[in-house]
């Protein structure tokens, strides 16, 4: 057992309520998966579905978090506007997946960290807006650790550096059990974004962390994400 990961230190963040003394609820358990190889999109989708299903059917079963990279693909939400695909869906240069999340089309590719969080919001807070803001804050905190200032844009979801969007967020939720999560461009090739209107936002400029920190790699960012996610959602990584 990894002592460090399992120590329960009462972290009093700005949101902690001193009147509520922490007991069982403070931490919940989650599996952490960080596949070393690049993962096909549909494979990771299946993983998430499995955990989500078991969490819905069996409350208190384990939550799960993945940090991984995908082969190049596009994904669109159920409510997405097909106009944001600047090509014929049937003649797509890359695989297109229609998935159960909010938001418009986005693009995944190696060099971008995708974070999937299958969490039971019943154990955290049953508030989707809160959850989206927490995901943004995680990305902002990670950028801060790297010495980059990440910002929100009013009325939009995601994280920007200067005028470039580096982090995207889109989630699905069933019985307050989440799926999907965020993506953070680290040192990826952004050219694939030119064939879509990312997130349905015209004139949005995309950026990646290597624009600010030359040479940064996915493996440099993953440990920061791991710790930031763990702290923000008060998770204990469960042994696998």
């Amino acid at each position, binding site marked *: 057992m990894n002592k460090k990961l*399992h120590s*329960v230190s*009462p972290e009093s963040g700005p949101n902690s309520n*001193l*009147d*509520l*003394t*922490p*007991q*069982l*609820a*403070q*931490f*919940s*358990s989650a599996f952490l998966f960080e596949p070393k190889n690049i993962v096909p999109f549909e494979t990771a989708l299946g993983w998430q579905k499995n955990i989500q299903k078991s969490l819905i059917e069996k*409350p*208190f*079963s*384990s939550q799960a978090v993945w940090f991984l990279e995908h082969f190049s693909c596009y994904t669109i*939400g*159920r*409510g997405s506007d097909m106009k944001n695909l600047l090509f014929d869906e049937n003649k797509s240069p890359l695989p297109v997946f229609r998935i*159960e*999340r*909010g*938001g418009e089309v986005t693009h995944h590719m190696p060099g971008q960290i995708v974070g999937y969080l299958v969490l039971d919001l*019943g*154990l*955290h807070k*049953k*508030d*989707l*807006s*809160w*959850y*989206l803001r927490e995901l943004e804050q995680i990305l902002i905190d990670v950028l801060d650790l790297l010495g980059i200032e990440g910002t929100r844009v009013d009325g939009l*979801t*995601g994280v920007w550096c200067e005028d470039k969007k580096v982090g995207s*967020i*889109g*989630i*699905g*939720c*069933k*019985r*307050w059990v989440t799926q999907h999560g965020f993506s953070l461009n680290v040192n990826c090739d952004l050219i694939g974004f030119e064939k879509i209107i990312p997130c349905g936002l015209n004139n949005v400029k995309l950026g990646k962390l290597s624009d600010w920190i030359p040479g940064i790699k996915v493996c440099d960012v993953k440990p920061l994400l791991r710790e930031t996610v763990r702290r923000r959602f008060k998770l*204990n990584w*469960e042994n696998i």
Partner: protein
Amino acid sequence: MPALSSTMTEGKIVEWLKNPGDKVERGESVLVVESDKADMDVESFHDGFLASIVMPAGSSAPVGETIGLIVETADEIASAQANAPSTLPQAAANQDKESPSSQTQKKQASVDSSQATAIKQTPPVPDYSVNNEQFLNDGRIVASPRAKKLASQMGVDLATVRGSGPHGRIQAEDVQSAKGQPISIPWIAESNAPARIVSDMPLKEKKSVDTDKPPSAGKSFGSRGETIAFNTLQQAVNRNMEESLNTPCFRVGYSILTDELDSFYQQVKPNGVTMTALLAKAVGLTLARHPQVNAAFSSEGIAYPSQINVAVAVAMEDGGLITPVLQKADETSLADLSLQWADLVKRARNKQLEPQEYSSGTFTLSNLGMFGVDRFDAILPPGTGAILAVGASLSKVVASKDGSISIKKQMQVNLTADHRVIYGADGALFLKDLSYLIEKNPYSLSS
């Protein structure tokens, strides 16, 4: 339109997963609502049929707006459709939950109980415990495999059984209690002590183990030779218990006579007051006079909570334990505490407690009295200053001050406390005061 967050004012219907006329099962996703970058599957609270879609996919509706109608039987679809509000929001606004049934006057009497239910949700959103009133099954029977088997063996009609499981699912115990058999696995150890370990209790109260009977076999999660992984709850308990090793604890014990408390309990029991409520209230009132014992260590100093919240440890049938909390135990009436406790335990069983309902305790009660245990000590939960272990109330030969000897009921309690915050004298005075309240003045609990 359900509220997906506290700040949400309207939501967009992304997709209807069902078409009008489709059968809908309770818990089945009916539509997808999007707010911001989040999609939420919205489920039906009832079995029935989607009669009408009021707000089509792609449209947005304010929170609380009627967006569709679900009826109970296929026969009602047509009438509900005829009476469905138009897609104009202002027309929809005056549709309330009951109106479709009031408008379907033409229907025959046989469906008098049925009414269309508007899919109209206001915060708090999907709370699956709200259907407790609907447990008597109307047609479709949801029962665990074991319950079904037991029912056929015992000749119990499942349609008459009230299900206590999630969504009213009938559990094996429900079948047994319907048949009037004692429930064999009372593994939520509901604290009924100081145990009146006598068998004159009504069956329902009799969660305690009767010492006159041969003891039942102990509990195990695995078979011989096996190693069983801890479940999540057990892991949480493990972490909390390990955490206590960093706390310098001491223990202090007291014997309390309970004859007065028992006779008071007999008086208030008909009003639905439980022993757990009595004990929680007694502890709450005493804590109000001994704030130091309600305090906890924090890195900044001694933290005095703004409320007195008494958590009561409850063992879970499938391992681990949980500590549902009776908020403001000092200020809440016995009747309210009893009701709250019944509700908390029921939802704890179904794992439906909200975090603040089991994590906001400022003092913990642990009771093994119902098993006839005369004394034990408890481990301090992190974040609190003290926990009280309560043993059974047993008949003892007691010598009083004047030297006379009599037989009295006596219960041993044992306080475990964090010495950084609570000192021996604090604990002793608290116990002395608690003992005085229980022995001499139990009637003050009802105030």
